[in-house]
């Protein structure tokens, strides 16, 4: 195995709170300690980065003791929840900020795409911006020149190439920006969430282009995304970060499995009621909630299977009845894709009563993709909200997996029943 990136004992500490008063005093203390040959007094204070636990220390370890290697030609997908340290790792790899301890060694030129179109100037033309952006990404002028036609064609903006980019539509802007990035010749590419922009068709083109990059030319790619589907399609290796430490570093399937496992906890009693939506009355609460298949909890459902949710509820106060509202949402925009209202209990419920329900969604309805869920209980007139659970309390995402190579798998959310009649 030919290692091209070697990360050793990498840690990064951040200072929390307001940088202002106090920093000067600490700087002086730091300076004195340094002169006396002692260790930096503030480095010792850090702790594991768990943003849900409040702590007195102003310093946290965003990354702690990372050790891993990346082989030549690997496409490494880095996954983890928000705040797990993914972006920090990418920033250190792209030399935007320095680590607190440890080191990274790499063979070959590193190009980082933490965003597309870095440095684009609205007054300059498309052509001028290609040169500007290319140079910022580390390309030499003659390299850009030799690829100029290819870049323009890839972006599909031939007609507007001598127009200032401020007159571009946002789609054209992103395509141009991405086209520059896709033509980098660096041996190592670092890509952060850039695929979250642009239209679906262009995203696919970019994914394909990046696939070429790593498979065809022996380049190494490090890729961060929340789009687990893109990660599974594109990457062969994975790195799962949790609270700044490596949980799993293995082939991508194992890593994605672990990632999903870590997300799932169906016992909602673990989540304090304060964390649930503040507007709820908690007269009736969800006790348990999960998605299941063949009697076992499962949040990854094949496209051809029925989707089942099971939940139990507990009555805390006497209520006149319980109604249910739930919606299935796009996790990026949080827009509601589908919703449903129904009466759960049509009589007076007494304190301490428990009910269990199942929700079934027929097979072949939700298209492959990831969905966030929103479940809420109300009184019969839908005026008082009893309890709400959604991804704010870390309800896992529901993932529908494609069952075969489906080139249209990202198109739309639903499959509607269709009758096809052959008329000869």
């Amino acid at each position, binding site marked *: 195995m030919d290692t091209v990136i070697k990360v050793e004992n990498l840690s990064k500490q951040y200072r929390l709170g307001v940088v202002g008063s106090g920093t000067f005093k600490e*700087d002086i203390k730091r300076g004195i300690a340094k002169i006396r040959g002692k260790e930096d007094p503030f480095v010792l204070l850090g702790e594991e980065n768990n943003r849900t636990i409040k702590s007195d220390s102003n310093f946290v370890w965003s990354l702690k003791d990372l050790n891993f290697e990346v082989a030549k030609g690997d496409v490494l997908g880095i996954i983890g929840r928000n705040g797990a340290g993914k972006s920090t790792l990418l920033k250190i790899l792209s030399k935007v900020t320095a680590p607190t301890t440890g080191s990274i060694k790499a063979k070959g030129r590193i190009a980082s795409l933490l965003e597309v179109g870095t440095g684009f100037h609205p007054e300059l033309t498309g052509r001028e911006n290609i040169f500007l952006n290319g140079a910022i990404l580390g390309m030499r002028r003659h390299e850009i020149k030799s690829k100029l036609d290819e870049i323009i064609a890839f972006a599909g903006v031939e007609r507007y190439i001598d127009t200032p980019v401020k007159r571009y539509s946002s789609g054209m802007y992103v395509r141009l920006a991405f086209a520059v990035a896709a033509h980098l010749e660096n041996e190592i590419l670092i890509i952060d969430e850039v695929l979250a922009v642009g239209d679906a068709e262009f995203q696919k083109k970019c994914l394909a282009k990046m696939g070429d990059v790593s498979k065809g030319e022996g380049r190494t790619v490090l890729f961060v995304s929340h789009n687990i589907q893109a990660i599974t399609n594109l990457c062969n290796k994975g790195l799962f970060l949790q609270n700044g430490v490596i949980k799993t570093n293995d082939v991508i399937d194992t890593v994605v499995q672990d990632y999903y496992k870590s997300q799932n906890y169906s016992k909602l009693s673990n989540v304090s009621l304060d964390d649930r939506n503040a507007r709820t009355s908690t007269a009736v609460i969800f006790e348990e909630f999960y998605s299941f298949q063949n009697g076992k909890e499962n949040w990854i459902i094949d496209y051809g299977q029925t989707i089942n949710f099971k939940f139990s509820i507990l009555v805390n106060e006497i209520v006149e009845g319980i109604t249910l509202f739930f919606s299935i949402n796009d996790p990026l925009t949080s827009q509601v894709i589908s919703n449903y209202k129904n009466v759960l209990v049509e009589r007076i419920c007494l304190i301490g009563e428990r009910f269990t329900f199942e929700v079934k969604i027929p097979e072949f309805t939700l298209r492959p993709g990831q969905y966030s869920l929103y479940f809420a209980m109300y009184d019969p007139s839908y005026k008082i909200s009893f309890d709400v659970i959604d991804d704010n309390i870390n309800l896992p995402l529901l993932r529908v997996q494609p069952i075969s190579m489906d080139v249209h798998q990202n198109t739309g959310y639903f499959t509607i029943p269709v009758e096809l009649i052959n008329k000869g």
Partner: protein
Amino acid sequence: MSNNKEWSTIITPKVSWFHLNIKEIWEYRDLIWIFVRRDIVAIYKQTVLGPVWFMLGPLFTVFTYTFLFSEVAHLSTDGLPGPLFYLAGTTLWNYFNSCFNGASVTFTANAGIFGKVYFPRLVSPISMILSNLLKLSIQMFTYICFLVYFIFQPNSIIHVNYYLFLIPFVILILGGIAMGLGIIVSSFTTKYRDLSMVVGVFMTLLMYATPIMYPISAIPSIYKPFLACNPISPLVETFRFAFTGRGYFTWISFGYSFIFMIFSLLLGVFVFNRTEKTFMDTV
């Protein structure tokens, strides 16, 4: 165990005390030129007069100065025509001021780009100094037009002399000092924004301590040692002396400015290096 030679990039928290990677900056020379172009093009796009604005601004200042200081207050101009005297000072000061101001916001103004991609950070102030050269050359052109006009006036006392060969050095030293001081300030303002306020006041004071509206010869001799501390003064006086033969030039004061530039650049690169690696965490 692999040795470090086979790795082309090594990222560590340590910064050597003085690390100026000229080779790396040279590799990014295309970026410097593209930045220069961007700055210049962006300024006068969608203006009718374009670069002419660089000329008009100082001209208004100079005519105001001529009226106020020369006609009303009767300050000395070393016997030179008012516009010519003041134009020399304002041209150089404008260059110094815009270079310094540009360099002093290197980190804060570029935080967006610096936070997303790596390139040698010194590329930014260097390209900014270069793009200011264009502005300077337009103003120099105005100055030379005035000079030629006044030379052909009857009884002209203007005596252009061989010290003209020092002019490129004057501009180099001026740009060097501006960049050195600017990047020092920019390094500290990433943490302590108060400094930018202090610097604004200081620059106004420095302008009055520089012979722009008055010649050094008009200063009472007890104050001269204080003015001699200002490394900008010798440059302004040298500039006037080379073009007109009037002014105060000594090799000692000129050498002082040069040494000041070397020191401010060394110190600047030193603190800049310490800052550039982690400033994203504090900015």
